[in-house]
């Protein structure tokens, strides 16, 4: 049932410090809302977990994109449009740019934020495999201070994260060490815009000749959380790409995921597509080694 606005409180503290101050006074009571592209949908369906909301939309401290020598620090309040329009992100982190382009339509890209996408913790979110593949780190902030942790492992389970009740994501850090890598991102869904993925993948790698030097493969929509295929990666490192390696990688990738049947797809289809996407990526990597 639709929610009645008179039952809900919404405040806009106007600064990051004031927002985390409010969270600290009664941890877990206030639900942060940025562009509302997830929260307002749950609100419309009468499914919001809280009746007290704190607006963090457009807080200047969360909107900056800092290009440092060794990393890019993206404010958690940056929208998909901000990401799409940023030149350095487009050049050095093209899979994140692509994911931003695939998310929702233009109006949702103008309002949806990267931090919101992470905290909403949907296993089907398009931008999250890219963050995993690029070894992103998160800076979390509360009145207790800031802490920095790898994004891998941030999702503790389906829709569960390591964010403490008094914390916000302040920034997402992307290490600038993937130039020269082959990148391959794919969204498999009913249509690109406004459709949630059946399977999405972000993978990057580097070969010397046909030998895999480094490889990162991340997938979404095939497990309770966005996933790095760590065992497949480990198996691939140092090996020569050939048909039997590709076939072994497909099998191992399928063994690592936990896909389900739901309204968008079936476990069987998702497993087959995951294997095929891994094979497609390895073939691109191999072609790069021959070029």
């Amino acid at each position, binding site marked *: 049932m*639709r*929610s009645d*606005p*008179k039952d*809900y*409180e*919404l*405040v*806009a503290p106007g600064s990051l410090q004031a927002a985390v101050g409010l969270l600290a006074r009664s941890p877990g009571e206030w639900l942060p*809302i940025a*562009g*509302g*592209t997830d929260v*307002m*949908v749950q*609100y*419309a*369906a009468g499914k919001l977990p809280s009746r007290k*909301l704190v*607006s963090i*939309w*457009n807080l200047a401290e969360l909107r900056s994109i800092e290009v440092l020598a060794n990393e890019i620090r993206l404010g958690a309040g940056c929208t998909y*449009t901000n990401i799409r329009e940023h030149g350095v992100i487009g050049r050095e982190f093209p899979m994140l740019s692509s994911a931003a*382009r695939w998310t*929702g*339509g*233009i*109006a*949702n890209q*103008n*309002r949806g934020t990267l931090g919101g996408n992470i905290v909403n913790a949907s296993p089907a979110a398009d931008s999250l495999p890219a963050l995993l593949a690029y070894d992103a780190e998160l800076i979390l902030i509360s009145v207790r201070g800031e802490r920095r942790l790898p994004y891998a492992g941030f999702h503790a389970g389906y829709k569960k994260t390591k964010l403490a009740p008094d914390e916000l994501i302040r920034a997402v850090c992307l290490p600038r060490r993937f130039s020269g890598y082959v990148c391959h991102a794919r969204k498999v869904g009913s*249509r*690109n*815009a*406004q459709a949630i993925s059946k399977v999405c993948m972000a993978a990057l790698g580097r070969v010397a000749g046909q030998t895999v030097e480094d490889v990162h493969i991340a997938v979404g929509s095939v497990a309770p959380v966005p996933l790095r295929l760590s065992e497949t990666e480990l198996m691939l490192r140092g090996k020569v790409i050939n048909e039997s390696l590709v076939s072994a990688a497909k099998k191992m990738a399928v063994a690592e995921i936990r896909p389900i049947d739901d309204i968008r797809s079936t476990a069987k289809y998702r497993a087959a597509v995951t294997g095929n996407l891994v094979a497609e990526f390895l073939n691109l990597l191999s072609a790069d080694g021959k070029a």
Partner: protein
Amino acid sequence: MSSSGEDRSKSEISFTVNGEQKTVLAFPMERLLDVLRLQLGLTGAKEGCGEGECGSCSLLMDGTLVNSCLVPALQAQGASIVTIEGLDASAGSQRLQEAFLECGGAQCGICTPGMILAASHLLNKNPRPTLEEIKEGLSGNLCRCTGYLQIFEAIATAAGRETAASS
């Protein structure tokens, strides 16, 4: 006027709509869509899905396209909002609306205000979009009548005219 508990939990929210300064008394979590339609009588923005999928409630907020069903009223504080009712003024949007008429870009009309606002947003950023760019710019706006081709053609036509006019 009675001062009920309801009124006390409402907030005064000020913004400009189509160039006019407005102050409304609304619950902070009221949807901007409802405030515009029910309090200000601006019924150009339609409610389709109510969950940010269909684009029929599109409007421009500080120059960017948003779905007003997903904007809590409080977040409109201080914003500059343009609805379809306010788009008439510029020459570019006149051409866009004429092109929709010429090309059959409007049928039942529910999606049309959103389509025109999304098109206007696209042309502001990219005055000469390719067909692919037009499709992407409108990908968040659904139409159940036209099959889209007439809408794409209308935007291409308007863009062509803008190009001709500016050269």
